Structure formats: structure tokens, C-alpha cells
């Protein structure tokens, strides 16, 4: 799992049938130190996350299919949690209500 910021959404009217009705969000991986951690990805939202939220993302197919209770479907990247706060070396580095504190 990794941390990411939801930066936007993706609208896709023509797509693989399994993805119909699912919310796709654009997420940018971040480190706990608030720096970028790689290229943006598109993730399926399972928790009602929105733009500006810091989220927990899995990028592994088997876990994804278990969460969606689906068989052989092409899913891999899913948002599985919205982060409330992060404490790093005893210091709060992120609070959901305030956004990034540093």
C-alpha cells in the first residue's frame, strides 16, 4: 500500500464493462515527508474519497479482486482508505482537517 493525494477525476464513457459505474480518481503518490513518490495513477474509489484527500492505495490485483468480490477482472489500483492523520517520528505531519501541516 502507498500514500497518495487525490488530485482529480477521470471520466471514461467508453470502457471495459466491469468498470462501468465505478469512480475513477487521479492519484499522485506521496512520501510521508510530503514529497512526490512517482507518476500519477488512476485508481478505483471504494471508500468515497474526493479531490484533496490523502488516501491509502493498493496496487495489487489479487487484493483488489478480493475487495471487489470479483473473479477474473482487470482491476489492480484501488483506493482503500482516507487518511485522518499521519505521525512520523513523533510529529504530526498530516491532518485531514488541516491538509498538510508542513
Amino acid at each position, binding site marked *: 500500500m502507498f500514500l497518495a493525494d487525490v*488530485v*482529480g*477525476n*477521470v*471520466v*471514461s*464513457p*467508453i*470502457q*471495459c464493462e466491469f*468498470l462501468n459505474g465505478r469512480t*475513477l480518481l*487521479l492519484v*499522485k503518490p506521496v512520501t510521508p515527508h510530503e514529497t512526490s513518490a512517482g*507518476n*500519477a*495513477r*488512476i*485508481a*478505483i474509489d471504494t471508500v468515497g474519497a474526493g*479531490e484533496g484527500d490523502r488516501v491509502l492505495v493498493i496496487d495489487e*490485483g489479487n487484493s*483488489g479482486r478480493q475487495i471487489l468480490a470479483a473473479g*477474473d*477482472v*482487470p*482491476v*489492480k*489500483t484501488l483506493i482503500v482508505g482516507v487518511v485522518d492523520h499521519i505521525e512520523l517520528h513523533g510529529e504530526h505531519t498530516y491532518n485531514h482537517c488541516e491538509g498538510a501541516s508542513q
Partner: protein
Amino acid sequence: MHLGRVIGRLVASHRYEGLSGVPLQLVQPLDADGEDAGGALVACTVISSGPGDTIHYIDGREAAMACPQTFVPVDATILGVVEEARNDGRLVAGMQRRES
């Protein structure tokens, strides 16, 4: 899953038999600003995508699961055409007129 843009088509007449009839297209990965990110790759497509389209694709083992036969040697598959992708409210990618 990743954002990309179809930049071409590819034909390979001799191929693994489970892949017959599956179109192959060249995809340029895009970053969150809609700019090119890294080198192009070849992906299968299971939708009606074509050159010029902004798309989203899946990579890894799951790419094969989108194909008509799911145990095939594929590591990238186009899953959808992107009508619009927004980053911080800005439109970074969207439906474009096809080149052909």
C-alpha cells in the same frame, strides 16, 4: 491503472494463438499534467480506441484478464477512452479528434 494516449497501431500477423483478433496499439504514457511520461509501449485494446484518443490502461498480470482469453502473454491493456481527466480542476486530458 495509468493515463495514456494512443499514438499508433501495430500489426503482428504471427502471434500467440490466444491473442488472435486482439488489436495492438502504441501507447504514450501521460503524467498528471497530461504530458508525456517515459517511453511508448505496446498494449492490447478491448475497446474501440484509436490513434489520438486519451485512454486509461492497466499493466501487469491483470492486463491479460481484460482479454477474451485470460491466460495470454500480455502486460498492458487499454481499458477505456478518457473523455476528460482533471487535475486540481484543470482539464489535463480529454477526448481529441482522431487522426484517422
